[in-house]
């Protein structure tokens, strides 16, 4: 067989993780992006910077803080234990929480750009037609910002698939729970099993290429239409 059962398990886990993170960030990131696109206050700067932090922050910084914060002695850990949930490190949901932080800018930034490019006009029109702000958002802003949503979701999904450093630090390498494809490849290399490492790496390479190809192939004609 081309991939071992362990590889397939890691791939399936990676897909589940990325899907969960994309959905959660869609819910969390949309209001943040909307708010950033439309507010003018002095705090817009700091919030934008915080959202963009994972772009520049080494994954080890995030992994280190999360390991301590989510552990039994940490702030988050104490909170989750009070709720009767086990500490988050070494769990699937721990990875989800970490990835939500890690992939946040990939959801918020494209959405913010899409919302900003809408301008005030469509919403003003909707308001004159007596649409409530929420109604206007869902029936006017969301359809108009559709390309932004697609870009944001694809990038979030792909970026979560590509996660490695944070997972290595807080995952504990559990098969089916935290051993995602990137870690599985690392393990193959460490175990000197280059053949399996090659195979899984090739799968990841092709996946990443086609995701980006689909994204950019879809984008180009749109842009050209806008120009002509």
């Amino acid at each position, binding site marked *: 067989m081309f991939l071992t059962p362990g590889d397939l398990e890691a791939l399936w886990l990676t897909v589940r993780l990325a899907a969960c993170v994309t959905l959660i960030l869609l819910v969390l990131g949309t209001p943040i992006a909307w708010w950033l696109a439309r507010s003018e206050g002095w705090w817009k700067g700091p919030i934008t910077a915080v959202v963009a932090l994972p772009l520049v922050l080494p994954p080890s910084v995030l992994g280190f803080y999360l*390991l301590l914060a989510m552990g039994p002695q940490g702030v988050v850990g104490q909170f989750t234990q009070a709720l009767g949930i086990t500490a988050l490190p070494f769990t699937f949901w721990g990875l989800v929480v970490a990835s939500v932080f890690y992939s946040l800018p990939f959801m918020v930034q494209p959405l913010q750009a899409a919302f900003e490019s809408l301008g005030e006009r469509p919403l003003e029109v909707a308001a004159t037609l007596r649409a409530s702000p929420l109604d206007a958002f869902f029936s006017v802003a969301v359809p108009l910002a559709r390309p932004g949503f697609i870009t944001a979701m694809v990038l979030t999904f792909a970026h979560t698939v590509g996660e490695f450093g944070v997972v290595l630090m807080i995952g504990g390498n559990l098969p089916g729970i935290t051993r995602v494809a990137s870690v599985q490849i690392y393990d193959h290399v460490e175990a000197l099993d280059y053949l399996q490492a090659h195979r899984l790496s090739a799968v990841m390479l092709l996946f990443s290429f086609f995701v980006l190809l689909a994204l950019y192939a879809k984008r180009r004609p749109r842009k050209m239409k806008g120009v002509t």
Partner: protein
Amino acid sequence: MFFLSLPAHAEKINIAAAADLKFALDEIIAAFPLNPSADKVVVTYGSSGKFFTQIQQGAPFDLYFSADIALPRMLAKNGFAASDVTPYAVGRLVLWSPHLDATKMTLTSLADPKITRIAIANPQHAPYGQRAEEALRAAGVWRQIVPKLVYGENIAQTAQFAQTGNAQVGLIALSLALSPPLAKQGSYWLIPDTLHQPLEQGFIITRRAANNALARRFADYLRTPAACAVLVRYGFALPGEAVVK
């Protein structure tokens, strides 16, 4: 400007060392007599398996200290060594806990339902992980505790999982349990070495350092009583003694 004025014989060695050597080797290097303005010893700690791959791919390491002597042997066989494979120590495995009294525990204590997470190094490739699995199997608790295991990438990360309290217990290197940060925080129980294959460790001078006098000098220094004393203080058995044990 300062660098340009260095004498021509100034030498530098890069050492790749197994993570269990972290504290012991730091001390040995600190005591290693060298001309501080000219010579330089740089050390990188990590997993033995990763260094093995990196050296094969031309990583600029002059000495390679592996927690499993089989890896430098393989490198030597493939022509990457400029010295014999030299055993330098035999490692020991301990059960370490930051909060529980590990001195009163044994491997069978790990089946206790109150213990929910146990850290070991990844048995797929980390020597200490392989030995931990052997010991747990020999103690007859492996099947019961597999669901509680979390796997560190190397033995230092395994210790860190336990030190941060994210795992209640870790099966780690004695050399790390005796290191200052862990010694003052937790307690350990020495796992009988009859339960697992020996953790025989070995080093080589790599091919690229064939003409590096400082690398030779450092290799020789490891045989001195001063260097051996440090290894012993960190719980390593010296290769000669291990045979007697």
